[in-house]
């Protein structure tokens, strides 16, 4: 095989790796007597099975150590976050048990005793941590006897579904606009796409939502005004939710793509006579997606935890409003619950992203190696 390869494509030398069956094809610098290697290609890496195990064991160990350290760090951050939130929450004026109407001192005491607010803060904190470890987020102080676990679980569903729908829409429409703009750089279509994107970015969802609702639901009656009963009901809130991210993605993709389209390998591809479509989708898009993927990670945690504004406008029973409502009501268990939920979600996505990076780029594993 070696000789065949060497004769066929002008390889100057063929070497075998001493430990494995990797074969190097060596090209000498042409036109020179100097025997320094110009280029080395790995032609064959069918190494023995034992070698395979050995390498992956080492990778596995490193991965495990990496993941473990990340995980411990995550728990630590969570602990700091829980403590800080607990303290801050108790530091703001007002209490979950206050009402506009005066309650007698005794009723107030009864209420405080009932929710354990009569105990010193440090005891409350200890109790909370103890229950938290057991996975018990307590019961809401405003929605009497509704457990916070259940409230979060019930309201996360609609937010998640709407969020996913918005993310898919953002990616599809955002990328399309971005590609068009990049391909028609400084031409009419570029301007049109970018104007659309800027409008999406500049018009806040609190304006976009009611406008969509008024035209498409009230005037044209194409959609329902509110609710998420049917798949069609997702359309308007999805557009309102996705308009901002669409603009961001379109602009990100446009700028990186313009760069990529001007790079050498695209020029090579063009000169080889590949069609525009193939160049864009196979080569340019792949190499321009990295900033978009990074943004998506950040976007995901934000979007699937709901939007107060969109939920309000389209009467969606999502989790977004709890983030605001809980603080206004000083509903301590719900403030803690939503904060922890959001933190865990954010940390988990980051954690998974970190692992993904490692799998893609081994340099991240040990922190060694050139940056």
């Amino acid at each position, binding site marked *: 095989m070696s000789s065949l390869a060497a004769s066929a494509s002008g390889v100057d030398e063929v070497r075998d790796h001493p430990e494995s069956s990797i074969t190097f094809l060596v090209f000498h610098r042409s036109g020179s007597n100097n025997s320094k290697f110009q280029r080395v290609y790995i032609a064959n890496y069918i190494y023995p099975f034992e070698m395979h195990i050995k390498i992956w064991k080492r990778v596995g160990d490193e991965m495990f150590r990496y993941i473990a350290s990340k995980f411990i760090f995550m728990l630590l951050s969570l602990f700091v976050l829980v403590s800080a939130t607990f303290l801050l929450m108790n530091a703001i004026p007002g209490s979950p048990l206050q009402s506009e109407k005066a309650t007698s001192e005794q009723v107030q005491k009864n*209420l405080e005793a009932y929710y354990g607010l009569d105990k010193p803060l440090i005891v409350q904190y200890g109790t909370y941590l103890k229950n938290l470890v057991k996975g018990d987020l307590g019961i809401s102080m405003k929605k009497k006897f509704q457990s916070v676990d259940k409230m979060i679980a019930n309201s996360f569903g609609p937010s998640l579904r709407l969020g996913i729908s918005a993310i898919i829409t953002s990616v599809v429409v955002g990328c399309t606009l971005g590609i068009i703009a990049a391909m028609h750089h400084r031409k009419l279509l570029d301007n049109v796409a970018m104007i659309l994107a800027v409008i999406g970015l500049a018009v806040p969802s609190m304006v976009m939502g009611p406008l969509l609702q008024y035209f498409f639901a009230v005037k044209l009656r*194409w959609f329902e005004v*509110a609710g998420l009963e049917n798949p069609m009901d997702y359309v308007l809130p999805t557009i309102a939710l996705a308009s901002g991210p669409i603009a961001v993605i379109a602009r990100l993709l446009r700028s990186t793509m313009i760069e990529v389209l001007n790079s050498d390998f695209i020029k090579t591809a063009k000169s080889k006579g590949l069609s525009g*479509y193939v160049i864009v989708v196979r080569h340019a898009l792949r190499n321009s997606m990295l900033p978009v993927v990074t943004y998506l990670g950040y976007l995901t945690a934000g979007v699937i935890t709901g939007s107060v504004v969109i939920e309000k406008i*389209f009467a969606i029973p999502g989790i977004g409003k709890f983030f605001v409502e809980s603080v206004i009501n*000083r509903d301590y268990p719900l403030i803690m619950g939503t904060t922890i939920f959001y933190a865990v979600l954010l940390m988990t996505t980051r954690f998974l992203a970190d692992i993904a990076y490692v799998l893609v780029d081994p340099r991240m594993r040990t922190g060694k190696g050139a940056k």
Partner: protein
Amino acid sequence: MKGSFKKPAQFMLVLIVAFSMLLTACTSNSNKPTPTNSGTENSGSGNTETGGEKEAPQEFRFTLASEPPSLDPALMTDAQSGIVAAGLYEGLTRLNKDGEPENAIAKEIKVSEDGKTFTITLRDDAKWSNGDSVKASDFEYSWKRTLNPETASEYAYMLYYLENGEKYNTGEITDADQVGVKATGDYTLEVKLFTPAPYFTSLLAHYTYLPVHPATVDAADDWATEAKSIVSNGPFLLDQWVHNDKLVMKKNPDYYNKDAINFTTVNISLVESDSTVYNLFETDKIDWIGAQAGSIPTDLVGGLIADGKAEVTSVASVYYYLFNNNKVPFNNAKVRKALAMAIDRQALIDNVLQANQTPAHALVPPSIAGLEGKTFREMYPDTDYISENVEDAKKLLEEGLSELGLSSFPEVTLLYNTSEAHKKLAEALTDMWRKSLGVEVKLANQEWGTFLESRKAGQFDIARSGWGADINHPINFTYDLIHPLSGNNDGKYNNAEVQKLLDGSLVAATQAESMDMLAKAEKIAIDEMGVMPVYYYTTPTLIKPGFEGVFSDYSGHLDWVFGKKTN
């Protein structure tokens, strides 16, 4: 190369066409239900039940801005819960359209000579939704449970009228048997009050006095959080409770008075945004807006009233400002009075509020009942309580300031809770003061929780306030707001005569005497301007044609229970 670039453009065109096809698909989809409404092919969407051949489906749909925090009568504190509870539960009495109590579960109510003992006979055909009979002991259990300190009921004070009720709630006594309520038979309840309360039969209609099913309550703390675990005794049953989304109520086939109930299904959607509520009404998804069941967007109210589409009903609530009576310059009655006289309330209503509110020259709102079919305000009109006269106000202010030994009006701040509406009113008000009295009042706003704490602690000069009724009686707006010992008298207005009159009204020999004393106390407090009333609330309401018996009650809450669709 240029040719190849055309392709994505074509691709985009295809996308656009596909998208527009999607939209057209939606059009035809959403067009389908429309003919269904006209009755040609009533495929029965599940929600609507057609009663007879040509009868209108007896369905009523409205919205609430937030879901009831609880449907446990002991823990309810808000209007939303009250609106749902009115259909879900049945108390001893119920208020009719005029706000007067009528017997419900009670068949007969006898009052003793001294007005302190009520012997109530219950009807024996009322049932809980699980089939059990509603007995006198259920009421006894419910009231004692609400008063039990361990229940930590915020509205327990509503039951302080019961003998030893307050003592039991505050832990002064621990024996519940000493509380003045006892089931002396399966269907007789004996209630002892610590003081005569002529309006006790109205109180019995309040949700804090509703019964609960003891076995259900004992079984689980969270019994009132899900539709399936609630056991109720009212004209409607809770069929579905999708948290933060909707509540669906169905007519209770075992309700003792089921013939009086017309609606078969009541859909309550939980919608916070006013404009969404209005859009739902416009697209025929709901039948009612207003009276705490959704509200008309403020910018549309004026137009809808002018067009005769919205009806304006008065609400038993008053909007007023507190003066800090312990602080210079508002420790002087003349200064307080001058400020109250220098504002044009009608101008504020016409230009700022725009919902046909009534100018308030006193505290008790117009819809609160008086005696013999008259309202309290008809008996004691407040129109001449405050004379809005700028010249007199200027004189009074000068006198007041010199009494205080001040050469000019000191720097004061008006505090309100953060809201666009409160801000607009406060700005207009301070502008009137600036123009008429040359007085500079600064504005400050705080977020609700912080605001309440500041107000309770007396950390303000002037503070915004509003007060609504729990029961249909003037005592709500007098005893609660101007009694020196009331926990709601945050401005610390203190007048011994007022205190004497208010205390006396509770034990007065006749109701007429009691009313007189309340009216006198109110007049004194306004003469001294302990607090400064601005307007009595109204609620603009919208209803789809073809409904009757659905209305805003005296307190401005939707009453839908005995409503009917006629076409």
